[in-house]
């Protein structure tokens, strides 16, 4: 999950890192977070003074107590610190050697896991073997560089040097697969996630030193041969790539230099150029007439944020206090909010209707969005939440008995534990910002009144409560009653005459094991099947008009797959049914509406926050 988060946000985070690099200031102390993906380095979660050998310990390969080695290691640490001052190795360790675990069996490692040799048969490309470094390249490097010396070209010199993401098949040379990139010695071609290479540079062989530089500022990569830059090889690189080498014929041996030795290529010079470039960019950045209007800018940022998320009353109060104007009129804010509420409650059908009514043509112009909404509607039908199904379920006393809980409640929801992965999961901050303020606020406000739903307590700003729904769920994990509280709160607001509240509170067991398709109602199921056909039809129509769309296909497949399992909530695609999944869609719809009104689709405050947040953890 963290991975996909990086995918969308790598760029800006890097800029931040770069700024830090630039001003040589130490990154602000990061707030401590647990990270699910840091599995292979559990020891590093404890902060505190850390010796230079920490990473090696984690890598589990280096002998300690050898004084010569310790000296070399200190030198390495020094060099890495100088090259990548913005990297906090406690959070994101730098690659220091090849991983003895993350390699194909035909690869042998020696010399402190820096030397790689081939030990397979080397008959054909099926015998190719790769090894990744112990850690991915931290985004905070800005510019990252490593070198590989060809000790021996072996029989045929089929050597590939490059980068790959975690999980890419190691029985291959770098560059042959998706998220894998390589420069090959036998033909000098570059391989960009493809079995066929592009003419790139000269061939390389025994004695040559090949360098690989990843520029995380513009997401490109270039290679060097014996200290000479060969020019850009790859663009649009994904984040979190690992240095990788691959060999294919017997006798091939290469040595890596992750900073243990001085590099042949003058990487400092290259870095200094970028530093100067960015310095210049900042120095020349036009401020113009906005100079000195900082207060207005700040107020505008706050106000636009409130408006964006539809905190109508707060926004009005803020505008009154600061004597500013709100960019969007009240009805428009309320409309947007109503639609958002509907989506978050899983009543997508109504949301679509409302959107079409309030913003005609919006969905017609956004067929992708409409399709996403309809897909979600289908999922919610399965869930039993969508109003079309829901109205049927509620009238059925049978279903009410068997499934007294709100159909929208997923027992897995509480366990999904959104709180633990704020960066990865929080959908409204698709710009990659760590949890926005409103979430934590609502969390705390909810936890202070955990029984508010039972008492049907009205809050002054109900909108906020709705927004907070999922977080409420997330926070009070383990207590399904409380989860329901959270959910019911909004059920209640939306449908105050729904009298099933009481059931919900006591329906622990039913919630956990007893959910059924469309709330178990026959008519609802039929309606769902019919809707599924309509959806299929819509997909075909879109294909005809706009050509095939792999994302749509996947979405549809996933949604329909739910029907294949007897218990959709506990199946491999069951994750779709979680209410958190609504949030992405909700913010996409909100952004689309805002864009149609010529308002920014992302609040400037979030952008600024993203740029200012400590980039250390991911």
């Amino acid at each position: 999950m963290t991975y996909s988060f990086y995918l969308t946000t790598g760029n800006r985070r890097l800029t931040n890192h770069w700024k830090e690099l630039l001003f040589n200031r130490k990154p602000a102390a990061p707030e401590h977070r647990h990270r699910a993906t840091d599995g292979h380095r559990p020891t590093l979660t404890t902060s505190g003074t850390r010796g230079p050998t920490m990473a090696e310990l984690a890598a589990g390969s280096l002998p300690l107590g050898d004084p010569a080695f310790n000296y070399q290691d200190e030198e390495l640490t020094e060099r890495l610190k100088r090259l990548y001052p913005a990297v906090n190795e406690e959070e994101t360790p730098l690659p220091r050697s090849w991983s003895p675990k993350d390699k194909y069996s035909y690869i042998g490692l020696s010399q402190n896991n820096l030397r790689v040799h081939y030990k397979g048969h080397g008959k054909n490309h099926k015998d190719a073997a790769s090894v990744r470094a112990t850690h991915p390249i931290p985004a905070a490097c800005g510019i990252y560089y490593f070198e590989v010396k060809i000790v021996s070209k072996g029989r045929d010199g089929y050597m590939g040097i490059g980068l790959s993401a975690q999980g890419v098949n190691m029985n291959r040379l770098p560059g042959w697969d998706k998220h894998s990139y390589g420069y090959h010695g036998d033909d000098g071609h570059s391989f960009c996630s493809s079995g066929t290479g592009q003419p790139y540079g000269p061939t390389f062989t025994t004695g040559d030193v090949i360098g690989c530089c990843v520029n995380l500022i513009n997401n490109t990569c270039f290679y060097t041969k014996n200290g000479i830059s060969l020019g850009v090889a790859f663009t649009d690189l994904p984040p979190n790539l690992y240095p990788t080498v691959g060999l294919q014929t017997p006798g091939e041996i290469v040595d890596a230099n992750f900073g243990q030795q001085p590099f042949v290529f003058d990487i400092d010079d290259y870095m200094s150029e970028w530093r100067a470039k960015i310095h210049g960019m900042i120095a020349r950045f036009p401020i113009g007439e906005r100079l000195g209007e900082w207060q207005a800018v700040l107020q505008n940022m706050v106000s636009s944020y409130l408006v964006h998320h539809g905190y109508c009353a707060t926004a009005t109060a803020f505008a009154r206090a600061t004597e500013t104007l709100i960019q969007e009129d009240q009805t428009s804010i309320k409309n947007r909010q109503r639609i958002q509420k509907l989506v978050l409650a899983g009543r997508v059908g109504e949301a679509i209707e409302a959107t079409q009514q309030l913003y005609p043509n919006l969905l017609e112009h956004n067929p992708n969005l409409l399709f996403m909404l309809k897909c979600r509607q289908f999922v919610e039908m399965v869930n039993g939440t969508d109003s079309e199904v829901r109205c049927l379920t509620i009238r059925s006393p049978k279903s009410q008995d068997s499934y007294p809980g709100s159909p929208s409640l997923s027992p897995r929801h509480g366990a999904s534990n959104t709180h633990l992965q704020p960066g990865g999961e929080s959908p409204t901050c698709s710009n990659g910002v760590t949890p926005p303020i409103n979430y934590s606020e609502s969390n705390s406000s909810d936890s202070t009144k955990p029984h508010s739903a039972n008492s049907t307590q009205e809050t002054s700003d109900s909108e906020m409560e709705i927004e907070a729904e999922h977080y409420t769920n997330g926070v009070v994990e383990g207590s399904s009653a409380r989860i329901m509280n959270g959910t019911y709160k909004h059920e209640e607001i939306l449908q105050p005459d729904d009298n099933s509240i009481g059931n919900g509170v006591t329906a622990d067991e039913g919630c956990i094991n007893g959910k059924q398709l469309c709330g178990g109602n026959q008519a609802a199921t039929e309606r769902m099947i019919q809707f599924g056909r309509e959806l299929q039809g819509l997909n075909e129509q879109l294909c005809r008009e706009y050509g095939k769309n792999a994302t749509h296909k996947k979405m549809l497949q996933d949604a329909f797959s739910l029907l294949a399992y007897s218990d959709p909530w506990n199946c491999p695609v069951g994750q779709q049914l979680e209410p958190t999944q609504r949030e992405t869609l909700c913010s996409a719809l909100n952004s689309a509406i805002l864009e149609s009104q010529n308002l920014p689709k992302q609040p400037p405050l979030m952008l600024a926050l993203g740029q200012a947040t400590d980039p250390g953890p991911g």
Partner: protein
Amino acid sequence: MACLLEAPLRISVLSEVTATSRHYVDRLFDPDPQKVLQGVIDMKNAVIGNNKQKANLIVLGAVPRLLYLLQQSSSSLELRTECSVVLGSLAMGTENNIKSLVDCHIIPALLQGLLCPDLIFIEACLRCLRTVFISPVTPVQLLYTDPTVIPHLMSLLSRSQRTQEYITQIFSHCCKTPEHQTVLFNHGAIQNIAPLLISPSYKVRMQALKCFSVLAYENTQVSMTLVNVLVDGELLSQVFVRMMQRDQPIEMQLTAAKCLTYMCRAGAIKTDDSCIVLKTLPCLVRMCSKEHLLEERVEGAETLAYLMEPDVELQRIASTTDHLVAMLADYFKYPSSVSAITDIKRLDHDLKHAHELRQAAFKLYASLGSNDEDIRKKITETENMMDRIVSGLSESSIKVRLAAVRCLHSLSRSVQQLRTSFHDHAVWKPLMKLLQNAPDEVLVMASSTLCNLLLEFSPSKEPILESGVIELLCSLTQSDSPALRVNGIWALMNMAFQADQKVKVEIVRCLGTEQLFRLLSDPDTNVLMKTLGLLRNLLSTRPHIDQIMSSHGKQIMQAVTLILEAEHSIEVKEQTLCILANIGDGNTAKDLIMTNDDMLQKIKYYMGHSNVKLQLAATFCISNLIWNEEDGKGSGSQGSQERQDKLREMGFVDILHKLTQAPDSSLSDRAKTAMQQYLA
């Protein structure tokens, strides 16, 4: 009014002269020195940034008066300083202003002023001199007319940062010839300017650097001295390397790279030195990239072309650096289609540099491809490359045409390209057109390229022959330029290789025996060698030998005798003996040798020569003479018997016998084959 202006200009300007301008000039003549000073100061304020006012004042004769005041020792220092400031301001105007100032002898007056001890005044004079000297209309020679000037300027270098900046700027603009370089060098330019490279002022550092680049250009003496200079304990080359760092201003990187390039080309730095391979070359390649100004890209490409011209290893490295070959293709995209519509200013800028960019790219391609076959292939495979060269050959700009033909020449050294892309794009057509009416520079390159296109495996050879090239080439052999003579005769030589009888006859007819023999006594060895080569190619296959020898035998034998008797290199003699061997291969032509005892004695002499090559060629000739006829003609076999007998009588058999024991295997083999003819 001492200043000379072009008549029409004077009239138009005069008509606009206002009373105020006149008033400023009048005040310079006030008897009260204080009022004169105030007048000059007011004038200074009036002319700043006002070209019209400047022109007016010049027309009204302010310059001679200002110069007079400046030179008068009775004038106060303040007045003299203000005068030079005003003059400097006038010089900042148009080129016509500069011309007027120079015509009024401003330069000697200001140089004289430098002798004054006052620093402020000196700086004002230097600033004005600088402005005058950096203008293209000022003759640089004026700096060198008085031999005391340069040493005095050197001594002023220590006075202040301003004097340093102005003086180095003057030097870098006025050092245009090897003589200038020598004058500056002899007056200690290197020692005096080197410390300025670490001046705290960027301007001083930059101007000092420029000075070194003009001083070192094609100057071994300067370059050799530069490598040993230490600046603050650091070698000069290292200082230059530091100035090439990527975070330095582009102008500084580029100029430092030029300095090192010139030092390298002058032999002061080896081409495999890391400061060249890892620093200078990559820096220059970077300068060619799209992100830089057009001027910088032109300079970068030209300097890089110059740097690697003689060194194949540098060419190989450059060809793989940062996709240089592909990067250069962008040089041909100006003015871009976007600039035409969106921005007139940009279009104008692009147009101005389009020729420069193209010629720079051609030069760099030529340099890149001059040795390595793979690089040539890479170049010709670049998008539309051959089309670009073809259209470059007929461009209006001579510079582009020359560069394009250089590039073509470089690529024409590739057998593969001659066979493929050259033929596909019919490059011979524009090339022939270019040869019709071109300056010598272009002609040398074009004819040299033509030589390659006439090689026997070139498919272009046939169409070129049909286009009447022989006459053109024959006329080239009569040129005053040895390079053109060589190329002319070389092309004819290539053309005659394995050619039809018709072509050979045409060559001999067109060139004329007289010219042929004149070329055999050409002072240029290259010309002589190629002429012998032509003869050798003409004299191949028996019928051709006999036909040519029957009509020109006498002269050819004469020429051969002359060359063998004269002082010539081994190569020339070898080539000549080969011609004899070819003659000996003819049916009737043989007799020309057999009946010439003198010639046979010469052959005998060369068979016993200390040089194996000559022995081999002479043995070859004898072998041909004693060869048993196999074509079944009765008279032939009888003739061979006679010849064998005669040669035996002359002692050739003994020599051949001795040669069968020669340590050189090809020689002994040749002798053995010849001996077998006797046994047969």
